[in-house]
């Protein structure tokens, strides 16, 4: 059972999930100029097909460890936009009371942290726990192409493979780590890094949520089968800057990748009248989230640990 309507898997819902992410992140970016949000954020815009596709097939009870670019994952997982918005505004009503902010959220079986790589062994440990406790759950851990640079990833792959842990490594390759193109950061082959440890890989260059969905279904089934970890590599594109204003890409490159828009691609499958419906339903969710959150009080410090 899904926590909310977002994760139903008909075409309209998939579209709407992606649109919620898109509009949420757009609104969020705009709130920096209003001063309602400080600090920084990493928008998921352009990569929506990944989260929407993946969370349309994994079980709502599965465990997720996400990274700095976690809003899209969280919303597709079924998390509430209002609580996320409140967290980003540093409100007491936020997911974790304003303590964590954009990169450090937790709700039900969803966790995130802002240190590249370090979350991967943690996810492996969670997978061990689910396995030992016979819950039937798998753990999804999200990394980016840049995170292939971190050693703890390989330590975790090795152990996960040795111990046949039910974990799905989701590698979202958006071709950049902050400003660093993948050619400057990743030697050899991405998929071979997983197969070297005996981890099977499902890989696709796509921004089509249905393609992601079917690939994710296979990869997740493998991770759940008891044969050990699986890896899903999705080559995608991020449309916005890495965080705020740090985008070295040329206008030509940006124009080119903006043509590969998951909303446009999947939009072809919708009936004309579904677009205004999606737009208004999503506007309501997103506006409600931010408007409501902005009225909430800030947290008080409880100084004991």
């Amino acid at each position, binding site marked *: 059972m899904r926590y909310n309507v977002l994760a139903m898997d008909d075409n309209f819902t998939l579209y709407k999930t992606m649109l919620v992410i898109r509009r949420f992140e757009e609104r969020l970016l705009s709130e920096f100029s209003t001063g309602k949000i400080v600090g920084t954020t990493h928008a998921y815009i352009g990569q929506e097909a990944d989260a929407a596709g993946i969370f349309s097939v994994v079980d709502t009870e599965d*465990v997720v*460890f996400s990274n700095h670019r976690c809003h899209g994952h969280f919303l597709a997982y079924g998390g509430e936009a209002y609580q996320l918005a409140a967290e980003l505004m540093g409100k007491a009503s936020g*997911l*974790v*009371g304003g*303590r*964590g902010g954009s990169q*450090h959220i*937790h709700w039900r079986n969803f*966790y995130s*942290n802002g*240190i590249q790589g*370090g*979350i*991967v*062994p*943690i*996810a*492996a*440990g*969670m*997978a*061990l*726990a*689910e396995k*030992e*406790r016979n819950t039937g759950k798998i*753990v999804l851990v999200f990394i980016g192409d840049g995170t292939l640079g971190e*050693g*703890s990833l390989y*330590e*975790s792959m*090795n*152990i996960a493979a*040795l*111990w046949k842990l039910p974990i799905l490594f989701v590698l979202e390759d958006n071709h950049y780590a902050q400003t660093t193109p993948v050619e400057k950061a990743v030697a050899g082959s991405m998929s071979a890094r997983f197969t070297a440890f005996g981890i099977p890989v499902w890989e696709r260059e796509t921004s089509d949520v249905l393609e992601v969905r079917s690939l994710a279904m296979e990869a997740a089934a493998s991770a759940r089968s008891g044969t050990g970890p699986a890896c899903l590599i999705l080559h995608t594109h991020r449309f916005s800057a890495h965080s705020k204003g740090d985008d070295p890409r040329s206008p030509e490159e940006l124009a080119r990748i903006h043509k590969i828009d998951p909303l446009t691609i999947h939009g072809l499958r919708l009936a004309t009248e579904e677009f205004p419906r999606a737009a208004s339903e999503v506007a309501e969710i997103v506006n409600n989230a931010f408007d409501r959150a902005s009225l909430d009080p800030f947290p008080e410090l409880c100084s004991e*640990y």
Partner: protein
Amino acid sequence: MTTVLDRLNFALHRSMESDERVYVLGEDILDPYGGAFKVTRGLSTKFPTRVLTTPISEAAIVGMASGMALRGLIPVAEIMFGDFVTLVADQLVNHASKFRWIYNNLVRVPLVVRTPMGGRRGYGPTHSQSLEKMFLGVPGLKVIAPNTLGDPADLLAAAISDEDPVLFIEHKLLYTRQLLEAGKADLRDYQVDQTFGDYPTFTMRPTKPAHLTLACYGYNFELARLAALDLIMEHEIFSEIILFSQLSPFNLDPLFQSLERTGKLVTVEEGTISLGWGAELAARSVEKMRGLMVRRVAALDLPVANAKSLEDKILPSVQDIVNAGLYIVE
């Protein structure tokens, strides 16, 4: 007679027996070897599915422990040598110890990382350090060290039952030490009190009013007792000894009580002196009381050399403690 090693091993056995959520993981911990210092001996025979020998991946060991702890298990991780805690610093500081607070108390992270520290065995500069000081004061992390006065089994069992992450520091030379018995042998001349709670602090008061307070933990309690004896025998200087099991967070009330009586503090530890455990004791004490005399005894600010002739001079000795006591009293 019972050694510290026996008691630690016993605690692991008992914890695994009484709670099947307890898992033990680390390098080379399977029988018959039972771990580099034998603390995990017998466990894998008795609990074959819950004792996990790992690759040489310290960061992943502690990371996995965090994940296990977040999802309903109670992991006890062994880091083979304390020198390798540098490899788990990110996992301890930026992950395990932060989760509870940054997730607004929605989670607990009941993990234990056990590791042997200390020198005097000729293991050289990368296998002899006392690096626990790097983790003292880390918010959300407890640092605990056993000794021969309290029962190391109780301490480790408490750490395993603790709902927050615990770094459990075992000095290598303690393993073969016998537990002390209250009122016997060199405890005979002391009145021993202890605080309530899982990680007690011990106050040892001599029969005569004391001139100074010796603060210590772990193995250095062995040296501190010898120094205290020497100070009595050779110089008629009496010392109270405050022995800590909990190094961090710092809870120093028994120390302050002793300092009210003596006004003189000597701290003893084996890590390098600068910004060691003793620094925080000195700082808190002087913030609280005026007119204190303080002297810290610790290792020189150097690596631990392999050659014994060097190691002996780098690490603190009983004589160093005696000298500090004399200096401060005179």
